């Protein structure tokens, strides 16, 4: 998000799900789309199978979408900037770039041109292992497409250099003028039902709702007058920084609403120690999650089926969530709990219901100004939507990049913070399964989904399994510098030799005991896709 906000002026998905249908070429990287965004995955399959769209998959793992792909490039985890710069190099060298677009809509092209000049196909092959012919083929495919869209997800961002990876992607789209039109763009697929909404609402340490910076006095003044209090100008801490500050005793209280860090965060044993030092840990959730189990106070809340409100999907579409059921007696909607707590605390909050809250959101969030509950009755609206006559914005950067000019930013490949060595010879990468969701708080309580995917399976390449004497169905202990866990093994060529892959939904086999808290310096995203580990056969 930080990456695209810098280069284009908006961190969100530039285009719409429906207009992926207009793309001739779809470059999918760091997104296991058919498992993590299944309905978009189906759309991609359909375009490839029935409409001649070309798909390029760049992923260290042989994901399902590879079977639809015209081209699959398999870099090692953590090598994204190298191959992305390599594509730019070839596109420039072969004159496939969009000069009129660059002249009219961008700045600092020369800096990137110069920087990528050393990312020759040979150089990139040496770093990533991608054969140079394949890289050239991919560059030609993307570079000569009429409409080409890039889709990416956490495989790009969850690295210590994730923001630079996003900038490299942005450079590629700017280079070919693949922005501001249907079937193009830079499309980060947001993982969770309302992650876009939580960001839009200012649940970030540096911005108020609508990405209005807390450090800017005029914006702070605006919110101070709306909220009737003086506000802190000091940017706050991000999720992983909070845990570190708690460990150091600087943070004394953490209030968690509807998240389960004790499964999803990196380096769990460290996190557990950090939480143990808190004077107050409040967890508000629908189940007694792993995080709730260590809390001082647990507050029972309602699920999305039991309340009204709005979710914002990955394409910036604000949609109405409607109450279908009464929740369990005793549980209350999150908004009601916050109102009561805030009033008890001495900052009164009185709202008749979600619509009244939404009306306040509209007043302070320019992108939402034109969105009302009554308009949402006839379907979702994509922000920005500045007034009630505005139809919403399916495609960003149309006619003009939001930032004014698209900014080319030169970025460089550097080796990851941990590199495999004698003691920890494997790269561990983590991700999601089609049948489960995030911390598993919901899906692990669905009989069918547990039947389809009952347990953690760590993927390992047949040649590595052979060397370790591990057979299908065996258990293995995976050990990193931070911790270890035991899981059943799946032997598969989905992962290349030297790489193991685990899914993080399983509290009983918590892979995040092993993962690294090293952060991307700009986005503060932890490097969940790259830790070094060793694998031992386990017979316990």
């Amino acid at each position, binding site marked *: 998000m930080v990456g695209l906000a810098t280069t284009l002026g908006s961190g969100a998905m530039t285009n719409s799900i429906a207009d992926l249908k207009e793309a001739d070429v779809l470059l999918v990287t760091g997104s296991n789309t058919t498992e993590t965004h299944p309905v978009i995955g189906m759309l991609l399959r359909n375009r490839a199978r029935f409409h001649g769209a070309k798909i390029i998959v760049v992923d260290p793992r042989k994901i399902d979408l590879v079977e639809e792909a015209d081209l699959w490039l398999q870099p090692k985890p953590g090598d994204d900037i190298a191959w992305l710069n390599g594509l730019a190099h070839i596109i420039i060298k072969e004159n496939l770039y969009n000069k009129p677009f660059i002249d009219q809509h961008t700045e600092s092209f020369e800096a990137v041109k110069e920087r990528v000049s050393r990312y020759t196909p040979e150089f990139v092959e040496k770093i990533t292992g991608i054969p140079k012919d394949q890289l050239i083929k991919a560059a030609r495919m993307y570079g000569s497409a009429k409409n080409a869209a890039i889709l990416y997800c956490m495989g790009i961002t969850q690295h210590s250099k994730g923001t630079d990876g996003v900038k490299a992607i942005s450079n590629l789209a700017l280079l070919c003028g693949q922005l501001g039109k249907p079937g193009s763009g830079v499309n980060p697929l947001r993982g969770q039902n309302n992650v876009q909404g939580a960001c839009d609402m200012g*649940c970030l340490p540096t911005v108020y709702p609508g990405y209005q910076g807390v450090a800017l006095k005029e914006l702070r003044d605006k919110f101070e007058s709306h909220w009737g209090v003086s506000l802190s100008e000091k940017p706050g801490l991000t999720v992983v920084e909070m845990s570190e500050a708690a460990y150091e005793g600087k943070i004394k209280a953490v209030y968690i609403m509807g998240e389960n860090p004790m499964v999803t965060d990196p380096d769990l044993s460290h996190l557990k120690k950090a939480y143990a030092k808190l004077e107050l840990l409040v967890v508000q959730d629908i189940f007694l999650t792993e995080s709730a189990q260590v809390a001082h106070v647990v507050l029972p809340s309602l699920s999305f089926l039991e309340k009204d409100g709005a979710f914002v999907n990955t394409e910036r579409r604000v949609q109405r969530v409607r109450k279908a059921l009464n929740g369990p007696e005793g549980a209350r909607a999150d908004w009601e709990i916050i109102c009561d707590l805030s009033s008890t605390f001495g900052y009164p909050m009185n709202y008749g219901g979600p619509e009244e809250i939404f009306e306040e959101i509209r007043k302070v969030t320019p992108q939402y100004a034109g969105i009302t509950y009554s308009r949402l009755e006839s379907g979702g609206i994509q922000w920005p939507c500045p007034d009630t006559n505005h139809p919403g914005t399916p495609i960003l950067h149309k006619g003009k990049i939001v930032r004014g000019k698209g900014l080319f930013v030169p970025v460089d490949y550097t080796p990851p913070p941990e590199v495999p060595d004698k003691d920890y010879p494997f790269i561990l990468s983590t991700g999601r399964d089609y049948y489960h969701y995030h911390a598993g708080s919901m899906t692990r309580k669905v009989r069918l989904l547990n039947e389809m995917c009952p347990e953690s399976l760590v993927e390992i390449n047949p040649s590595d399994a052979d060397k370790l004497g591990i057979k299908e169905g065996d258990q293995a202990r995976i050990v990193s510098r931070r911790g270890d866990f035991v899981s059943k093994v799946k032997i598969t060529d989905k992962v290349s030799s030297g790489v193991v892959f685990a899914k993080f939904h399983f509290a009983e086999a918590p892979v995040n005991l092993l993962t690294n808290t090293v952060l991307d310096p700009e986005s503060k995203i932890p490097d969940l896709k790259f830790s070094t580990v060793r694998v031992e056969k386990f017979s316990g």
Partner: protein
Amino acid sequence: MRMTINGRAIETEEGATILEIAHQNGFRIPTLCHMESLIPTGFCRMCVVEVQGLENPVTACNTQALDGMVIETDTAKIREIRKEVLQFMLVKHPLDCPVCDKGGECDLQDYVYEYGIQKADYQVDAPVKEYKTYSTPAIKYHPNRCILCSRCIRTCREIVGREVLDLKETGFDTRVEAVKPERCISCGECLAACPVGALTENVSSIKGRIWQTKRVSTVCGYCGVGCNLEANVVGNRMIKVTTKEGLGTNNGVLCVKGRFGYEFVNSPERLRTPLIRDNGKLREASWDEALTYVSRKLREIKEKNGPDSIAGLASARVTCEENYLFQKFIRAAIGTNNIDHCARL
């Protein structure tokens, strides 16, 4: 171009089928095997219409409309043909509507009633088959009810891209079979496509007739695609999820979590009361006690260590309104910008 349907002159664009133009102009033509998002096949022959100058009726779903066509959609001859089509389906399809999950929202049931069919005219001495195992435990297949419209097969191929299903055998033994069960992802698109009760949901133990069911249009609570779906509720129990073509950016399509992943909501493990840790153990507390406790502790910590010693984690799972209030609470009431959520995870 110009054409005439049931005596009415119509001005229209070229390139559409007779069915599309008829529907656009408010003429109803019955269909069973047709879905807007699938390539039309004309399999079921319910959509037959008469075209002046052609000896035999044509299927409207896969016949292109041409300039000057004069079409009749509801003549006595056409009605007879449709009745025969339905009678042939009833050879195998039992009139077991009272015990069928689909009763009350079944296209075949509606047409049989509409065309005044009183009983199945043709009898074949074939053994009644029990439902057999399907490719996913989420769905039951009842071969006798199957009218072989192939919507499930085509949906799996054209929309989901998995090609799990195909027709097997011939004649009376023709049935749908999971020929590549290992490719099944239990998305239930086949179930949603079935116009009759040949595929039924096997997840919820509670069922409800359409007229007993409240259908609430909402958004899926799992991934970021934001699929639109309908929560089906009987009493205060979630009994299933439905969709329809044209609904949301997902156009009625869902994955396994969206369609079958709702059981958590009825889970007995749901939290029902606030809990406070006392002597190392969580004990039940009233809302009053819990909120007063949290408020007092937050105030103490704020006074002693300053607002920046407090942090809040909002959620990518709850609504915008709740996230807005949460960050407002952390910023305006507590006085810190230590607010984040799991966007980075």
